């Protein structure tokens, strides 16, 4: 229970940080920013790694799901950051 209270505190505070981070964003940066934060939301890979790694002893379904989770999250991260970089570099050359 104490753990939950702590986690919840962190959750709320981080929400405020997230809100404060984004203020005046020029429209050209909307898509790259979306793609960048999307890549960051691939952080769920941490959870995927933990569940895939500890699934060694458990049912096959859980192990398969763990593998799928790691794969999906990795796609999200790798493609996300690369694509954001590509988009931003295009802007740089243009402007």
């Amino acid at each position, binding site marked *: 229970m104490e753990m939950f209270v702590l986690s919840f505190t962190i959750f709320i505070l*981080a*929400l405020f940080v997230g809100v404060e*981070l984004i203020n005046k964003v020029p429209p*050209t*940066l909307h898509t790259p920013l979306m793609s960048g934060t999307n890549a960051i939301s691939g952080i769920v890979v941490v959870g995927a790694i933990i569940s895939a*790694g500890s699934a060694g002893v458990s049912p096959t379904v859980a192990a398969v799901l763990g593998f799928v989770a790691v794969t999906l999250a990795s796609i999200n991260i790798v*493609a996300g950051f690369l694509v954001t970089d590509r988009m931003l570099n295009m802007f740089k050359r243009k402007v």
Partner: protein
Amino acid sequence: MFALINFSYLAAAVCFILGIKGMTRPSTAVRGNQIAAVGMLIAVVAALLHQQIVSYPTIIAGMLVGGTIGVWLAKRIAMTQMPELVASLNGIGGAASVTVAASTWLIALTADNLGTTGWAVAILVSIVIGSVTLAGSLVAVLKLHGSIGDSAKNRTWQLVALTTLVAVIVGGGLFVNGTGAQPLVLAALVGLCLLMGVALVQPIGGADMPVVVALLNAYSGLAGAATGFVLDNQGLIITGSLVGASGLILTAVMCKAMNRSLPNVLFGGVFGQAGSGSQARDEGD
């Protein structure tokens, strides 16, 4: 070890904050993206150090397969297809949350070690948001691609959305209170949430898809935060809520840039009112 891992998560979160901050200005955007990528690397390495992890082959195989597909996608895609790719990556992220939650739950079920009610709620939230994100993003991709036109049966979709919502609430209640804690119930919940995701996005016009994708992006962040509650992992909670909140604000900013309000975008197609103009246009076409 516990301290080291958690300090690494903190370092990763700081990188993400600096990265997002950098990405809001054109001059620092490229650097911001790189900082965020470094943060992700730190987080992955920290995750690999967890004590619970007993076998590495699955993890490494998954990362190799996923990484290769990711590189291939990012290199191959044409610049004009970017919005579709971002939307599909979003859906993939949602799917990852669902699979993590389902896998964690199955492991706990087999070990006969289902957590508290709060834990079950976190699993449920993770599953619901993740599946809605997945299905919603798929519809968004198809709409951006032009494969699905704007629907004329908005009322029907609204009804489907409401029905599935009620069903998910009932099923979720059973799931959380323990009577419905069975793999089949979980699978049914995932199916219902997928249907709900389709029904929520289908009535929205194709032109509004970027805003919808931004909103779904915020959802996938929140799904990550919910997964963090499932695993009691502060790194996930911080980053997930960070992405969730900044995604929501970004959605609002994008709406403003398009001179629309968010409720107007989301429900305009269904409830008529401000959306009736666009509906009338559709019928004229």
